[in-house]
């Protein structure tokens, strides 16, 4: 395997054949955040607010976003009084649910600001009884 700049990486990949990427969610302990990535590529991190960052794909056609991160997880867990389960995995949806419930207006503003022009939703004259 060639194409590397450093001897360190040349050596590493000569001993370890590169693996294929699989979408993943994991806890980044150094930056205390949960990262979700669905495609391997170069990307630009766009900070939406103190909690959410999205990953915008670079050099890719037809792909806009490839992941996101939720920051300050341990702080959030304490603030939201999230149950501590050392030996059990957390469910990502439960974490997002707790964040949204803690500050629904901020989350709504965020969605409106970032996605309103892309979602292009027209909602008018909904009859909730009928919709249900």
């Amino acid at each position: 395997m060639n194409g590397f700049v450093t001897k360190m990486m040349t050596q590493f990949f000569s001993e370890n054949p590169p693996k294929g990427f699989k979408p993943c969610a994991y806890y980044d302990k150094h930056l205390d955040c949960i990262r979700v990535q669905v495609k391997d590529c170069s990307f630009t991190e766009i900070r939406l607010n103190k909690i959410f960052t999205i990953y915008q794909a670079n050099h890719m056609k037809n792909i806009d976003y490839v992941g996101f991160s939720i920051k300050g997880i341990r702080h959030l867990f304490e603030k939201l009084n999230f149950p501590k389960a050392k030996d059990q995995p957390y469910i990502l949806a439960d974490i997002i649910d707790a964040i949204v419930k803690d500050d629904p207006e901020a989350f709504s503003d965020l969605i409106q600001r970032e996605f309103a022009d892309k979602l292009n939703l027209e909602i008018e004259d909904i009859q909730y009884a009928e919709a249900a």
Partner: protein
Amino acid sequence: MFGIFQDDLRKRYDRGQNSALAQLDGIVVPGLILARHIFRGLKRPLYDDGSMEADTQKLVHSWRPNYDFDWLDPFGRPRKLAPVKNCVFVVLITKNERHLDKYPEVFGWIDRWNWVYEDLNLPEAPLNWSSRYEEKIFTRV
């Protein structure tokens, strides 16, 4: 001298995050010493390595590299690409304070590297750097 934990490299390798490894090889290692700016402290709560105030200990290096890299085909080679327009590259580092006994030669540990949008008011700095970081501690002239 900067270091990176072997476990961190191994995890990226196991996940198949090959583009990040190609960027480490092609941008971070040769370019970190050429950083245009260094910022200290993330303005957000962060717990790391036993410290409840790890946000104050993070250093952010930023510059505009000449190239980007990705590695989409693991059976192929890393691709050398044009740098991302209107963006700068940042490397987040934790100053080595807790592991000095074992690694006295290491100044800081590389935690993370990625592209972010550039601040138009300060070339080669991340967008909104003054609201993201505590202070700017170095600028190369």
